[in-house]
C-alpha cells in the first residue's frame, strides 16, 4: 500500500521537522479516519446512547404508570430477575428456539444444497422455489403458518394428518414451541441452503474427482473431502443463523403471543412484555442488560470464529 508521503529530504532532522512529521502523521490518520466517522458516529448515537440509558434505567425503580415512585435502587432490579421463574423459562425458550431452528434448518439446508449441487432439469426453477420462503415478509409468513397451516378447524396441516386418520391437533396451543420452530425453520432453511450451496460450488472439482479416482466411496468423499471444506460455511451459517434467529419476535408475537401462559415466550418477547405491558422500565431494562451481557459473551466467542474464518479466507 503506497501513501502520498513524498521522498524524505536528505537533511538532518531538526526538532521542528520531527514535529511537522508527527503532525503530518496525525493528519494522515485523521484523513484516513474521516470517511469512517459519519457512519461510526451515527451507529454510536443510535445504539450506544440508548443502551447507556438502558443501563441507567436498570438501576432505577421506574414504572411509567407510577411516575411518583422513581428512585435509585442499585442492583435490586437484577436481584428480582433471579427469582423470576418466567425469566428463566424465557431464557430457556430462547435457547431452544434458536438452536432448534438453526440445527434443523442447517440439516435441511445441507440436504437441499447437496440435492442442488448437481446438474438436472429445472435446477434454476427449483432453487427459485426453495428460496421463496425466505423472501416472504416474516409477518406474512408467521400468519400464514398460524392461520392457514395450523388453524385447528380449517388449517391445511390438520386436513393433511386427517387424511391418514390422525385426529385434529390444536397446534399453537398444544405445541406452541414446536409450531414456532416449524415456521422459523421453513423461513431459514433457504438461507442455510444458499450459503452451503455456495460452499459446495466453491469446492474444487478436481479434488473430488481425485478422491473418487482413488476409489473412495461417495460417503467417504463427502466425509473426508466435502465436510472439511464446508466447515467454514457451516460455521458461518450457524453463526449468522444464531444472530438472526436469537432476536426472533415477529413469529412469537403473531403466532402465540408467548402463550399459552408464557410457554412460548422467548427473551425478546418477555422483555417486550415487561416494557410495553408492565411499563416496568427498571425491570425490563435490567433484563435487557442481562441479555446483552449474555449475548456479548456468546458473540465474543462466535465473532472470533468468524474473524478466523474470514482472515483465513482473505489470506488464501
Amino acid at each position: 500500500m503506497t501513501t502520498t508521503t513524498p521522498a524524505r529530504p536528505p537533511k538532518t532532522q531538526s526538532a521542528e521537522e520531527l514535529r511537522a512529521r508527527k503532525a503530518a502523521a496525525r493528519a494522515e490518520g485523521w484523513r484516513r479516519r474521516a470517511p469512517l466517522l459519519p457512519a461510526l458516529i451515527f451507529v454510536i448515537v443510535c445504539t450506544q446512547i440508548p443502551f447507556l440509558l438502558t443501563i441507567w434505567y436498570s438501576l432505577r425503580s421506574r414504572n411509567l404508570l407510577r411516575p411518583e415512585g422513581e428512585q435509585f435502587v442499585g442492583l435490586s432490579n437484577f436481584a428480582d430477575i433471579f427469582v423470576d421463574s418466567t425469566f428463566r423459562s424465557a431464557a430457556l425458550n430462547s435457547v431452544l428456539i434458536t438452536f432448534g431452528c438453526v440445527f434443523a434448518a442447517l440439516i435441511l439446508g445441507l440436504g437441499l444444497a447437496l440435492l442442488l449441487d448437481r446438474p438436472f432439469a429445472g435446477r434454476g426453477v427449483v432453487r427459485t422455489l426453495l428460496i421463496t420462503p425466505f423472501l416472504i415478509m416474516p409477518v406474512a409468513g408467521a400468519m400464514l403458518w398460524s392461520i392457514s397451516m395450523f388453524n385447528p378447524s380449517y388449517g391445511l396441516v390438520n386436513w393433511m394428518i386427517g387424511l391418514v386418520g390422525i385426529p385434529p391437533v390444536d397446534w399453537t396451543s398444544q405445541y406452541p414451541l414446536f409450531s414456532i420452530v416449524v415456521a422459523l425453520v421453513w423461513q431459514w432453511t433457504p438461507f442455510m441452503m444458499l450459503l452451503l450451496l455456495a460452499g459446495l460450488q466453491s469446492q474444487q472439482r478436481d479434488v473430488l474427482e481425485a478422491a473418487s479416482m482413488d476409489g473412495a466411496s461417495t460417503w467417504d468423499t463427502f466425509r473426508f473431502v466435502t465436510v472439511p471444506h464446508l466447515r467454514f460455511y457451516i460455521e458461518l451459517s450457524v453463526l449468522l443463523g444464531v444472530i438472526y434467529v436469537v432476536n426472533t419476535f415477529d413469529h412469537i408475537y403473531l403466532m402465540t403471543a408467548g402463550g399459552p401462559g408464557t410457554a412460548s415466550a422467548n427473551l425478546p418477547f418477555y422483555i417486550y412484555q415487561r416494557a410495553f405491558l408492565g411499563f416496568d422500565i427498571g425491570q425490563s431494562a435490567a433484563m435487557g442488560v442481562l441479555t446483552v451481557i449474555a449475548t456479548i459473551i456468546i458473540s465474543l466467542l462466535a465473532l472470533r470464529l468468524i474473524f478466523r474464518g474470514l482472515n483465513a479466507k482473505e489470506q488464501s
Partner: protein
Amino acid sequence: MNVAAPPETASATVHTAQAPRVKKVTTRPPKGPRRSSLLTTFTWVVALLFFAPVAWMVLTSFKQESAAASSPPSFFFEPTFDQYRNILSSDAGPYFLNSVIATAGSTLLVLLLAVPAAYALSIRPIKRTQDALFFFISTKMLPIVAVIMPIYVIAGQIRMLDNILTLIILYTAMNLPIAIWMMRSFFLEVPGEVLEAASIDGASLVGTMRRVLIPMVAPGIAATALICVIFAWNEFFFALNLTAANAATAPIYLMSTMTSEGLFLAQLSAASVLASLPVVLAGWFAQKQLVRGLSMGAVK
C-alpha cells in the same frame, strides 16, 4: 491487501491440467441415469413441498372469505379478484407508501454512510480496522428489545413518535453494519494496481472514489442496497412500537387486517401477497447477491 487475483489463476490452471480425468469420472457410476432421475424427482418433490405454503397463500388470496376458511380446504373454486380490489380501494395506500419511503430513505442513507466507511476499512485502512469492524458487527448482536424503551421515551420527548423519519433513522442504524461489511468485501476485491495507478495520477480521494472505485464496485453497491431494502421492507418490531397512524408500514397493515372479527383469511392472504411481492421478485432476480449480502460479504 491485494487478495483476489492469485488463487483464481492457480485453480484455473489446475483445472485444465486435470481435464482428462473428468471424462473417466463421469462415466464411472453404472447406476447413473436411473438414480439420477430418481434424485431429480425427489428434489422436485421437496422443492414443491417447501413452496406449497406460499402457493396456498396465493391460492387463498383468490378465494371468497367463506371458501378460504372452509373445512376441508377447497382446492377448486371460482377465482375472484375481490380481495385485491378491496385492498386497493381500502386505506392500504398510505401503509405501502410509508414502507416505500422508509425503505428508500434508509437505504439511501445507509449507502451514503457505508461506502466511505467501508473505504476507510479497506482501501486506505485506519489502524484499528479490525476493532472498528468488530464494533459494527457487535451492534448487530445487541438485542433490539434492550434499547426499545429508551428509544421510545426519547422519541416521545422530541415528538418523533409516529414519524417516518424515526423509522428511516433506525432502519439506517439497523442496516449500516451489514452494509459496511458487505461494501468492504467488495472494495477488497478491487485490484491494488488500479488504486495505485489512480493515486500516482495524483487523483484526490473523492476523485478516485468517483471515477475509479465506485464504477468498479457498482454491482456491489446494488447488492448492498438489495439487502438493505429487504431488511427495511420486512421490519416489524420498530414499526409496531414507534408508529401509530401516520407512519405505519406494510407489516402493520397486515396485522391490522387480521384483527377484524369474523373471516379475514382471504383478505389477509391477498395483503400478504402484495406486501411480499417486491422483495420476492428482487430476491428471485438477485439470488447471488442475496447470498453475499446475507453472509455479510463472507461468501463470495
